[in-house]
């Protein structure tokens, strides 16, 4: 224990030294302008993401770290519209574009144009495959697998699971589902007896679950993708069934419901999702690239996990009706970059 702690401290010191050294070589970015190109704003997660951007990037502008950090959102969530938006940003003379993309491939042409024009492109959440861009990705498959691992630790005897998927045809939905199925293959005491698409929306999930429940046997656990757990709980309640173990997705109404259940009957579960604050991480990564830091093209951001122990804390810090969030600072970005090297 003591040795490992000492090792950690040493590693930390070495890293801090490395960082300080790296920082001294970094260029000034106070005349650089960064734009956020965002494809969608129509849910609470995206709203929290835009809010975080406004807070963090706005503060950075006020502090003189960068000259501008403007956010732009397309109205129709179309790749063509976003490609035109990126072309506008090139013409407007931005130095970097932070991108949450409508499609992993359809924007590659526009992203390439931006790179050729000398812009730095950092994609996050909805990433692009164009090699010249940076990618801040979440290991969604690991997130799906972690859900099943957790269920296995809580329900060692296994049973029937209901899977709630996201929006059909979206990369993230496929990845999380892949992880969940990999988890079920590993823990073969579980069987997925039903699968519905909840579109990451409570009301859609509620409707889909209510429709499939009558034909399902007893369910011991529900694996979800975020934004659908509360709706699932409502559907189980309306059908007069016992509430199974529902893995939640960090929405405030889900956490609130969890706390109520815990106080009433000791309900225990796990909540995990990608934090909307990843936009602030992308902002700092873009700033670091502009400053001339060596940044690997592929970065991984951990997902935000809330457990029984951290529930009250998370609930207290999440605005009512929003999503649990973490804001990343420059040091966090440097840490993520260092981890990827």
């Amino acid at each position, binding site marked *: 224990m003591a040795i490992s702690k000492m090792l950690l401290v040493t590693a930390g010191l070495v890293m801090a030294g490395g960082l300080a050294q790296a920082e001294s070589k970094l260029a000034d970015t106070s005349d650089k302008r960064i734009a956020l190109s965002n494809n969608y*704003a*129509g*849910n*609470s997660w*995206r*709203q*929290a993401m835009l*809010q975080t951007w406004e807070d963090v990037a706005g503060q950075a502008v006020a502090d003189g770290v960068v000259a501008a950090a403007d956010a732009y959102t397309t*109205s129709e969530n179309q790749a063509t519209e976003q490609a035109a938006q990126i072309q506008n940003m090139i013409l407007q003379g931005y130095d970097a574009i932070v991108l949450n993309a409508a499609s992993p491939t359809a924007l590659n042409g526009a992203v390439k144009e931006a790179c050729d024009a000398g812009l730095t492109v950092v994609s996050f959440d909805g990433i692009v495959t164009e090699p010249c861009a940076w990618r801040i990705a979440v290991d969604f498959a690991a997130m799906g697998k972690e859900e099943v691992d957790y269920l296995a630790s809580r329900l060692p005897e296994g049973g029937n699971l209901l899977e709630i*998927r996201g929006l*059909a*045809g979206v990369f993230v939905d496929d990845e999380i589902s892949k992880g969940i199925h990999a988890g079920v293959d590993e823990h073969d005491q579980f069987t997925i007896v*039903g*699968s*519905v*698409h909840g*579109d990451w*929306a*409570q*009301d*859609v999930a*509620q*409707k*889909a679950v*209510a*429709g*499939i*429940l*009558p*034909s*399902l046997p007893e369910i011991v656990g529900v694996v979800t993708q975020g934004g659908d757990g*509360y*709706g699932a709980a*409502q559907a189980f309640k*309306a*059908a*007069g069934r016992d509430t199974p173990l529902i893995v939640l997705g960090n*929405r*405030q*109404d889900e956490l609130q419901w969890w706390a109520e259940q815990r106080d009433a009957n000791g309900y225990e579960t796990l909540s995990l999702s990608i934090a909307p604050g990843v936009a602030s991480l992308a902002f700092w990564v873009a700033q670091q690239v502009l400053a001339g830091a060596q940044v690997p093209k592929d970065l991984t951001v951990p997902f935000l996990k809330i457990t029984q122990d951290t529930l009250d804390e998370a609930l207290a810090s999440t*605005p*009512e*009706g*929003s999503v649990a969030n973490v804001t990343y600072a420059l040091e966090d970005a440097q840490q993520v970059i260092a981890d990827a090297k």
Partner: protein
Amino acid sequence: MTPLARPWLWSWLAAAAAFSLTLGLTSGRGASELAYAALSFGAFAAIVGLGQMLVITLGPGNVDLSIPATMTLAATLALKGMSSDPGTAFMGLAIALAVGVGAGAANYALIFLLRLPPIIATLAASLIYQSLAIWSNRGLRIKPPEGLADFATGRVLGLPNVAWVGLLLAVAVWVVLERSIWGRWLLATGQNLRVARLAGVPVERVRATTYVAVAVFASLAGYLLASFSGGAALNMGQEYLLMSIAVVVIGGTSIAGGNSNVPGVWGAALFMFLVVSMLNSYGAGAGVRNVLTGAIIISIVIAASTRRART
């Protein structure tokens, strides 16, 4: 007119078939659960469908594409106004309905004053309504007051309360269409606008009230849906755009206008819920489900329309 020639029959037959096929899987277990869920969720589709039916009845080119945004805006403002305080349910309802009247009047103003085609006018207006909803509350989900949530998820005489609201509205719309002068005016306008105008029907007044009516129906559906599902979300109306048109068409209302069908809307609303439940229960993937849903809708519409043509 043989019973098979009644266009509304097909949506009910399809709903019944989907219902029994789902239960075939469980050998009859869960029948009442499934029926209850279908009535609950079908009610929202039926309410917006009734509104869309009135607009489509106005004749070719008339459709309201702002339904999802109107639902979202009405629900967002109503829930924000109530801010979960007990005893504010009626105030929230008033806010929602006022949003509906405002949105409907604005839609019609665009259509009448700027001479925009309804598709363009309502689509453009919906961007404004959606933006207002985002701007007013930034996507935060506010819980409905407890009493209202209990009402929206509760039941009377074994039927969900939201289904009662949908049924009462359906009866009201049916009476208005079949028994009132306004209903006759609406059908006449839809059958031939020019003839109706020459015959002395106040065509523009009919169109104005219809566009207000559809928006009020949408806002009521939004208010109920948000109360039912524990809060308004910015994407809550999304699936009701195609849904509202689908239930009208499947329900046997003529897409060319001038011919409404109230019972068909309810049958189609139940069917749209049951067909997804059925395919989910059989474990169909998203791709198969979408293809089959599309194919089934097309065949119902063909069946309903060829029968009608033969009579």
